[in-house]
Structures are given as C-alpha cells and as structure tokens.
C-alpha cells in the first residue's frame, strides 16, 4: 500500500509540473506584458530595456525554467500594482476562503450523507419524496439568489446575523479565525449556508442513488439475516461501500468550493481569494492571476491525492489492483 501511495504522490507532482507549464504558457506567452506595463508612446530603446529588465528577451525555455526556479523558491512574482509578492497576497486571503469552503462542506456532508442514506432506506415513504423534491429544487436555484434571500431574511428583516464581512478576531488553537468567536461564526453562517445549499442537494441525491444500489446487494440481505442491527447496517456496511465514490465527489466539490466561491464571496463581501482574483483580472495584474492559478492547481492536486489515498484505505480491492 505504501508503494501505491508513493506512486500517487509522483503522479501528483507530474500533474503540478504540467500545469505550471500550461499556466506559464497561458499567461506569459499570450500577449506581451510590455504592452500593458509601458506607455504606448515609449521609444524602442525603452521597450528593449524594460524587456531586458523583466527577462523577456531570453528564450522561451530559459524564461520557463527561470519561472519554475522562482516558483520552487516560493516566488511567483510581484503584483504589478501593490508591488508586494503575489503569492503572499493569495496566502493572506487563503484562510478566509478555506474557512468558508470548510464550513460549507461540513454542512453539506454532515446533513447530505445521513439524509441521503435515510431517504434510500425509507425509499417508499412520502417524506422521502418531499426531501428528494426539495433537493432537486436545491440545485435548480442560483447560489447568488439564495445568498440575497438569506441576507434579506436574516440580516434585513430579522436582523439576527450580519449581512457581510468577516471577523477573525477570535483565536482557535492560536490561529486567528472565524471559528474562534461567536461574532466570527455569526459572520460565517450565512455565506456558508448559501454556499452549502447546492452541494447539500447534490450530496443528498448522490448518496440516495449510491445507497439504493448498495441496499440491493446480497451482502446487505445476508447481514440483516445475521441479525445485524440497522445502525450498524447503514453506518458500517452501507457507508463504507458508498464511501469510495462519495469521497471522490466530495473531494472535487471541495476543490470547487475553494476555487470557485467567487460569487458568494462577492455577495457577502467575504475577503477571500475569489474577490482578489476578480480584482486582479479587472486590473490585468498577471502575477496575481498566475499565483492564484498555481495555488488552485496545487490545492486540487492535493485534494485528489488525499481522495485517492482514502479510496485505498476504504477498498482493499484497489490495493490489489495497484500492485498488479
């Protein structure tokens, strides 16, 4: 099993290398950064000097290798506008985004998986049809609209929760985070719910379908015939058997939560990476965009690695397949 884990890790590194090339090509080779940095009335000499200062006069390969070397040293360039390191800008915003994504994922998984399993076990009940109908509705309504509705109800009408912003004044395990104080949590709740709703609906339907399939298996009937009680039947046999496919979906969806929660962050004025990216794109701040893309790619690769490892732990048959 260790050798398979090592193989997965190597794969991940290869993916990262490939992606760095794609990002480099995408952002540095399409269009000339000088056009944006240097005023159009500048002379040819000035252009050449600026190009030389930025290393743009060197060959493609050299440029890429330099980029790679700097990236490995944690240097992804400086923001054209604030002149601070691009990676630092991203990493400053990362905790807020991770916080929001984690809360949304916890809500979606914590509610979605049990509800999905319950719906599958009580598939014939009326309540099940209502829940599944609501789930379908859940991924039919747009996230920003849900966010606005939540603000209208809980912030404007009831005035229970703040309508936006983040409060990380509280500390948890020595880290400044929204989880550290009630005020922090109250700011987090609405964006997290609004972000979780779609994933919750998705997980309910997915868990329901996967559980229905597992419940028809002979080993479930055999376990029931041995007198295995319902909590163990669903909590051990069903959960582990739907676990492999579920963790794959949850992993991908978590990555999506981190990388693409831009809309929700805008609606709730949440100071996350998404908002930074929008600002960077609007101002053509390329190093920040590159840093964002590379951080996102790394995150996705890491999540996929973890998902693969979880699958190896859950399903012994994958271990054998990996050895052959």
């Amino acid at each position, binding site marked *: 099993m260790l050798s398979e884990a090592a193989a997965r890790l190597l794969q991940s590194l290869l993916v990262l290398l490939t992606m760095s090339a794609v990002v480099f090509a995408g952002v540095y080779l399409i269009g000339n950064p000088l056009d944006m940095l240097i005023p159009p009335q500048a002379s040819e000499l000035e252009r050449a000097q600026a190009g030389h200062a930025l290393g743009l006069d060197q060959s493609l390969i050299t440029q890429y290798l330099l980029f790679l070397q700097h990236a490995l040293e944690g240097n992804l360039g400086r923001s054209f506008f604030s002149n601070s390191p691009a990676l630092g800008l991203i990493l400053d915003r990362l905790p807020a985004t991770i916080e929001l994504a984690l809360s949304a994922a916890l809500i979606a998984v914590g509610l979605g998986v049990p509800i999905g399993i319950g719906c599958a076990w009580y598939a014939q009940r009326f309540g099940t049809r209502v829940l599944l109908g609501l789930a379908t509705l859940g991924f039919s309504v747009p996230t920003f609209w849900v966010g606005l509705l939540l603000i209208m109800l809980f912030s404007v009408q009831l005035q229970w929760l703040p309508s936006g912003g983040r409060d990380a004044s509280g500390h948890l395990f020595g880290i400044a985070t929204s989880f550290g104080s009630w005020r922090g949590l109250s700011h987090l709740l609405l964006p997290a719910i609004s972000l979780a709703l779609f994933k919750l609906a998705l997980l309910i339907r997915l868990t329901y379908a996967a559980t229905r399939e597992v419940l028809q298996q002979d080993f479930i009937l055999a376990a029931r015939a*041995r007198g295995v009680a319902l909590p163990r039947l669903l909590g051990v046999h069903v959960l582990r058997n739907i676990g492999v496919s579920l963790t794959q979906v949850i992993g991908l969806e978590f990555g999506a939560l981190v990388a693409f929660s831009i809309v929700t962050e805008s609606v709730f004025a949440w100071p996350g990476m998404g908002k930074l990216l929008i600002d960077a794109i609007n101002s053509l701040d390329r190093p920040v965009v590159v840093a964002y893309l590379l951080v996102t790619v790394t995150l996705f690769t890491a999540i996929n690695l973890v998902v693969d490892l979880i699958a190896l732990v859950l399903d012994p048959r994958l271990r054998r397949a990996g050895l052959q």
Partner: protein
Amino acid sequence: MSPATPKTTVHRPAIRTTVSSPELETPLGSSGPKAPGHTLELNTAISARALSVRDLSVDFTTAQGPLRAIDRVSFDLAPGEVLALVGESGSGKSVTARALLGLTDPVTQSVGGAVLLEGESLLPLSQAAWRSRRGRRIALILQDPMTCLDPLQTVGAHMLEALRAHRSIGQREAHDIAVQALERMGIGDAPQRLRAWPHQLSGGLRQRVSIAMALLHRPAVIVADEPTTALDVTVQGQILSQVQALARDSGTAFLWITHDLAIVERFADRVAVMYAGQIVETGQTARVFSAPRHPYTRALLDCVPQRYQPGERLAVISGLAPSLAGMPGGCRFRARCAQAQVDCSHWAPATRTDSDGSYLCLHPLTP
C-alpha cells in the same frame, strides 16, 4: 386481503392469520370441519418442531392491486431434519425464505399466515424482536458466494459482527470462536483466513464462511437458498456432507431450497415441491422420487438428465409457469399437465394430507 379462490373452501375453509393477530390458537383453532384425510396436526406438540409454517401467504402490492406470490404454504421441520423445497425459478422459493426471516419489504409485500419457530409465532413480533431471532434462532444462507459477503470487510470482521449481533463478547473470545467455526467447516489455516478479504477467497471458501456464520449461534433452523448452485460439483459434495454432519450433531433443521434434484435425492429427508406459489406435494424423499403423486413432481423428475441413457431425448415440461398477474382459476398446473381433465379448470384442488405426505391435485398419479 386474501384473494383466495372461493372454490378451495369446498374442501377446506381458508385459514387466515394476519400479522396483527397475537394469538395463534384462535385462527388455527377455528379452522372448522376438515375434509377426511386432511390434518394440520395441530394437536401434536407444535413446540417440539423446529419450524412450523401454516398458510403462509405473501402478497405483492402493485399499482394494479395485490398479487399473491406465495399462496397458503404449510410445512413442518423437525429438529435435525433436512427438508428440500424444490421448484422452478419464479415459483416463490426465495420469497418464502425471506418471509420466514421477516426480510420482506414491509411496504410492498404483506405476509399472512403463521410461522412458528420453536413454538413461538414470529409474524406478530416487532422489528427489534425479529432481529434478535435472525441469525440466532433462524439463519439464512444465500445462493451466490461472490456477493453475499461485504467486499470491504474482512472475514474476521464479518464473524465478529455476527457474534456481537447477539451477545456481548470480547475480541479474543470472538476470535477463538470464529477460528473454531471455520475449522468445523473444514477451512484450514483459519486464523489466516480471518484476516483475508472476501475477494481473496474462492467461491467455495466464501460459501463455507457463510455457512460457518449461519451455524455460529447453533440456530434451530437454517434456511439455505440454493447455497451450492454456484459451486462446482466436488466442492458442492464436500460442503453438503459437512452440513449434513453438522446438522445431525447440532440438531439444526435445514430448509434447503434448490432446483437440483440430484442433491435432493442424496441429501434431503423430505421434499416439498413448489409450483406457482403453492406447495403441490410433500413427502419422504424416497417416496416422492419413487412414486410421485403430483403430475408436476413427475414432470420435474423426468427432467433430470441423470435418469436418461446417452442419446435418449430429454423430456421438457412444455409451456411456462403462469405469471402472478395472470394466475388461472382451477388447478394452476393444468395448462402444462398431461393428466389434466375437464374439472381441473373448474375446481381448485385443496391440499390433502395423509401418512405419505400431502398433495394438491384433483387427479393424483397414485392416490
């Protein structure tokens, strides 16, 4: 609830025990005058039997109304006895097995009649009470060894779970019991096997594990739903003789569901033949094989290839078994029966019981 054809009441009033009736004596006792030769043997001590099934019916709820999959099935099992339940696919054998363990779907299937396990009526039991008897007093072995173990649990985890379902037991003690149980089923290197995953075992080994688990709590009854059909013949023979010896030693009764008549002849004490949801004949194995009374039993026996010389043309039962939705009135086998007469389509036969067993036919081959 019971769409029994009224014609049967000519011979015997339909007995209905619903799941909700707590007292068994009332409905069975009110069965009224019986036709001569027909006995339900109610007076003999029912508790001495491992299992008594009386008028077990299973109805499937469909959009078109209820469909009766099992129609008033009755049989008894003595301790240590092997009763073979034979019949074609779709005749209701597996549904019977599930109904006996209370594993039918409560929403889409309704069960009527009475099931007495060691004298205790099971159908009125609560779900929790049912569960505490499943695996402990009545166990089930399924057909396909490839699918009846959870692929993500080790053999040891399965056995520990089976033990802990009915008694609180420490890890070490459970391990010892599990090793013994596997060794009793002829599995060598048992401690090693406990750590194995199901996909690492052959079909024969997996089925032995299933049987070992079924025997763990020394149940009164084991319902075996074609447990050796998916295995090759040599493994089949070994497992059968082991099970036979274990049954003899522990007094466990087997309801052996199969369509392999060669196994039945060697292995079963008695036979019950099922057709279209009804038991059409019961009797001692030797008697049923040598002198079947029901034309369907006769036809089934004629289909056994071993009974033919090489080159001889094999017999088939022409036609198909009726579907649940299109169950004919009168005798259900008549459309395929060589002996059918005019009255077979007008009168539904009632079960007649005597010292040689029972049959469900207006014109038995040997009365």
